């Protein structure tokens, strides 16, 4: 009979003496979920023949609708970021590229100016920070809904580069930190 009592006692103690060490669920409030996402933005390429065929110095100007930055989820959660530009000029002409950020009403929020020597030139790469202590205002990104490319030819309209398939290439991507929690 004593064995039964011991067993019952063990069972009773096992179940009823269960305890839960103190937990601090408020720690969840400290959780940061801040992924860094990156994506291509805009790619423009033009062969030298297009530049030669343009009547004036401004051989290309185009406004692109670009809603990615002004999407509410992105605009509400973006913390900071970097936009990377990469330009490659294999034409025989010096070129200027003006890249502009516009809001809904077409107001210019920010500009990025590139001056490219004629070929052979190294690839021009630039990174511009937004939202960081030394960077530009993040509001530029949040309010951007269009971007405009303005390309000027500072050279002639008949020379052709000796490099194969001469062209001007504009590449861009963005890398941003988003606060999901």
């Amino acid at each position, binding site marked *: 009979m004593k064995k039964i009592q011991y067993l019952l006692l063990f069972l009773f103690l096992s*179940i009823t003496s269960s305890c839960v060490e103190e937990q601090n669920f408020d720690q969840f409030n400290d959780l940061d979920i801040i992924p860094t996402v990156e994506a291509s933005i805009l790619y423009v390429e033009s062969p030298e023949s297009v530049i030669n065929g343009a009547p004036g110095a401004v051989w290309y100007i185009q406004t692109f609708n670009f809603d990615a930055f002004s999407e509410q989820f992105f605009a509400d959660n973006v913390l900071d970021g970097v936009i990377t530009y990469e330009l490659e000029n294999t034409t025989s002409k010096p070129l200027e590229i003006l890249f502009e950020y516009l809001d809904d009403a077409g107001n210019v929020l920010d500009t990025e100016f590139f001056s490219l020597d004629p070929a052979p030139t190294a690839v021009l790469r630039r990174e511009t920070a937004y939202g960081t202590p030394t960077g530009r205002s993040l509001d530029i990104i949040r309010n951007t809904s269009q971007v405009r490319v303005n390309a000027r030819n500072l050279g002639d309209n008949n020379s052709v580069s000796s490099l194969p398939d001469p062209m001007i290439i504009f590449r861009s991507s963005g890398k941003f930190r988003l606060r999901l929690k």
Partner: protein
Amino acid sequence: MRKWKLFITAIFLGSGFLFAQNRELLYDFTEIPQAILLNPGIETTYSWYAGVPLASGIYAQAGSSGITVHDLFANDGVDFNQKVRTRALDGMTKRDEFGATVQVDLLHGGFRSGKNPDIFYSFGVYFESNTILYWPQDLAYLAFDGNADQLGRRFDLGHLKTRGEGLTVFHFGINKVMDRNLTVGARAKLYSGIYDFHSSTNSGYFVTEEGQNNLLSHTLDADMQLRTSGLEEIRAILDDESSGSVGGVISKRALFGGDLGLGIDLGFTYQLNSQTVITGSLLDLGFVYHSGDVKAYTLQGRATTEGVEAILPDAFDDANSDFWQDLVDEIEAQLPFEDNNSSYITFRPTQLYGSIRYNFGEPVGGEIDCDCDIGVTDADVRTPYRNATGLQLHAVSRPRGPQAALTAFYLRRFGNILSLKGTYTVDKFSMTNLGLGMNIQAGPVNFYVLANNLLGYQNLADSHYASFQIGLNILSWGANR
């Protein structure tokens, strides 16, 4: 919307994350009437029993294989983000899971046939809910780290696997003693599905690579699907888009007003010799046909993008077009996110039990073990021995394949009043799972309590696994054969 989110959270946390479903303490614990639910071919020694409605079987089980509450929320001064990083993100894999089961007997009873005492009938109704969520490892990394500086890394969408259901089960079983050595049983089940959701056949990936034109190229190759049943009507009520009450919807669907299904349980007990017994059962071999209030979401296709592209001189022709919208439209066409109301079938998580038991010591009641007829009333009934030990195997079908557990047990009977069963179980969740069950028979009143993973009770928050079952029955002993 907030109420709807709370409801979803309640399903996951309240009805729980389905887990191993292994009920090793109850299995083959022949003194407890509810053991017949785990093996319809169990040896029955009572003439009838009646479970106390809503209290004859209350069972809950929960756990997680990769992490405990204590791992994250212990008041240990460690930075919470660091704990999440090292213990969850880096510490868990796609095979880790969170799960639980809740089962409540609404009604349960059984009686021996008056015409043929070799036959025992059982019947009842119980509610069951279970959910399983595998740790979506790659998607978690994508959420916490993003895709930056991860060129070439494929985030596997197949890591998203979850399944959950709540249903009422109406059952009727027959248990028959075939001869002195063999008892078989079968149970028919009618399922009335209350809610169901599952997303367990996903595949595909998301990858960022160096672009061919632009700096980066992003590819999403997806074949994903989430099917739900019984949730849309509740969502509409909670979002005030529809009249009615959530309780009303659940009640209706619990009583054949929702999805219907059929299933069977099979089982046997075979006496190899006077002291050695093998048992086996196959449970929930069945399906549920989801046809009411069905909503499915799919994301299927493949899209690659390098952002907005303008390639001159061709782009001059589209100077007035919306390049951004064209890009969005193109991706949506290649990778459509759609919904539908098509009916579907889900198969129940079938379970398999097996055991070998060796009985030893004196038979209960003190009769001399003469290796001969030790029946209570006649030669077809065997008196249980005071001691029994053996092994049990349990397997259950899961989204990532069968999951097995092995249990060693020792059963001790103290007269006809008290029985104790101790178990040691090894499975993917724990190597230290000790369980203890107690069955008390006080006259016609039968009470039992079973608790698992007792070592975890020292600090439940640090336990990977816990289960608990309690029940109250009125029964009459004696096979009357």
